[in-house]
């Protein structure tokens, strides 16, 4: 029956190829342009000479003389260090966030606990607190625990800030999984933890990937905490490093090198997203229930 469904889905568009697919492609084109145009402008800027960047009229299709690699070479090999720092902090904070968030979300979705709604309410309320305003209190904690200039000073807050979102999203996914699956697993002899690891988690991969990507990107791009908690140059993350890129004067904003740094700093992220978006595949629970 499932096979029948799939083939049906393939033949379906053919019948209405005209109206439906035209609307779809118009939508796709609009979306791609909307999302990419400003980013591509940034890419173009990263290759333009300083003169071409501020030339009037605006240069959309630069000639060879308007193009340069200088902005990239000016970043220097040291920039990879910042990329590494960002990757490390983002990866660990994402793992921590998912590692703590998924069990918590499962518990809140399926295990009845006294005070459960209070906990849930607390998580909701905490998520409303503008995170920028946490920095002063956190600074004191960081200082007190002696975490200054330690990756943990970034990893822990990033995880915590993403935790409410992770918990709520995963919880709603756990709730949507058929309950029979868990009952079946219990009958088979899975303990709660094993069941979470072997059955529930594999089935919520789309949600895990989704929240994971969101958390990872947040950590990758966060600025204020990264600026405040880490001052040692070797441990700075990309956004802070970009803020340190200098022009010929303190007043000048060096658009070219900043654009280049953005491109270099975002490419790893894109590769990651490109790789993981396949995991957000349709119908991972198909076949679990019903004929």
């Amino acid at each position, binding site marked *: 029956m499932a096979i029948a469904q799939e083939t049906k889905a393939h033949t379906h568009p053919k019948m209405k190829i005209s109206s439906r697919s035209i609307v779809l492609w118009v939508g796709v084109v609009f979306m791609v342009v909307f999302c990419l145009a400003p980013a591509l*402008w940034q890419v173009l800027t990263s290759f333009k000479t300083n003169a071409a960047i501020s030339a009037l009229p605006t240069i959309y299709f630069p000639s060879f003389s308007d193009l340069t690699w200088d902005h990239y070479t000016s970043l220097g090999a040291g920039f990879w260090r910042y990329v590494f720092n960002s990757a490390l902090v983002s990866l660990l904070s994402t793992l921590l966030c998912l590692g703590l968030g998924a069990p918590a979300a499962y518990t809140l979705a399926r295990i009845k606990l006294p005070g459960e709604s209070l906990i849930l309410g607390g998580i909701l309320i905490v*998520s*409303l607190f*503008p995170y920028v305003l946490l920095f002063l209190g956190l600074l004191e904690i960081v200082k007190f625990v002696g975490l200054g200039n330690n990756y943990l000073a970034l990893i822990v807050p990033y*995880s915590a800030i993403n935790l409410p979102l992770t918990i709520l999203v995963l919880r709603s996914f756990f709730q949507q999984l058929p309950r029979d699956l868990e009952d079946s697993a219990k009958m088979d002899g899975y303990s709660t933890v094993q069941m979470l690891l072997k059955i529930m988690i594999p089935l919520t991969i789309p949600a895990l990937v989704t929240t994971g990507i969101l958390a990872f990107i947040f950590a990758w791009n966060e600025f204020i905490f990264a600026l405040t908690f880490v001052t040692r140059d070797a441990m700075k993350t990309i956004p802070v490093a970009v803020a340190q890129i200098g022009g010929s004067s303190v007043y000048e904003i060096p658009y070219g090198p900043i654009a280049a740094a953005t491109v270099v700093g975002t490419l790893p992220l894109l590769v990651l997203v490109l790789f993981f978006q396949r995991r*957000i595949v349709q119908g991972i629970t198909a076949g679990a229930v019903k004929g």
Partner: protein
Amino acid sequence: MTQDLIRQREQRIGWLLLTPALILLLFVFAYPIGRAFFLSLFTENLGTQLQPIFSGLSNYHRLIEDGRFWESLWNTSVFTGVSIFCELVLGMVFALILNQSFRGRGLVRTSALLPWALPTAVMGLAWAWIFNDQYGVVNDILSRFPFWETNITWLGDPTRAMLALIVADVWKTTPFIAILLLAGLQSIPEDLYEAHAIDGATPWQSFCQVTLPLLTPQIVIALLFRFAQSFGIFDLVQVMTGGGPAGATETVSIYIYATVRRYLDFGYGAALVVVTFVLLILAVVLAGFLLSKARINVSGGR
């Protein structure tokens, strides 16, 4: 008592699974929030040599008369309301598109995530440059249309500056909503649509009657978090307008950040934090109440 042994065991494991996350949340959130509530009852600024002096509710009294705070609150509300509305509509459209199967979907999905992936601080600069009245791309494109005023000072006019901020924010965060909704769409079984289509429903009807209700948990979560993020907007405004012109784009976060970090007025800053936080909670509670009136479960349950 033996009757509940299994339940007790299950609950014990539940607490074990839940506690680490709660500890982390407490560790990061409890102290700063509690500290704000505590400090808001003290005067601690340059006038007191940065020593806390108990002053009761005087900070709150001062806050009520602080036009700048209420103006920034209004600015933030306008910004939040307009941008979230646009993001939700666009994000839903994006999610529906990305949920279709077509050639190159992987690339399109990735490109749809790109705005979210680019650092806000940097893209704020880029947007400021795009909206620049002399060199900006926006004016350059507009000037190619006849009858358009050229050299519009986007960031120099209160309304237009707000508009520019909203455009930049919508661009930046629509992917956030889109990907959350997309993940939600993935969990809606295909056969529901087929059953509905067999019943003779138009696509619009099945959207309203199948997609929307089943997507409610994700929509509510996305809205909630965008609301919180948007209300706390900081770096984008800081970089693009710095709160100007004439404070027309100053948001609450910007004001509080300045009060605490630049004016060193800690007690008053804490009072600002507390009031903002409480107002946000009230707004969400109210929204939740209205939603539950509309028989939608906020927490995502059934």
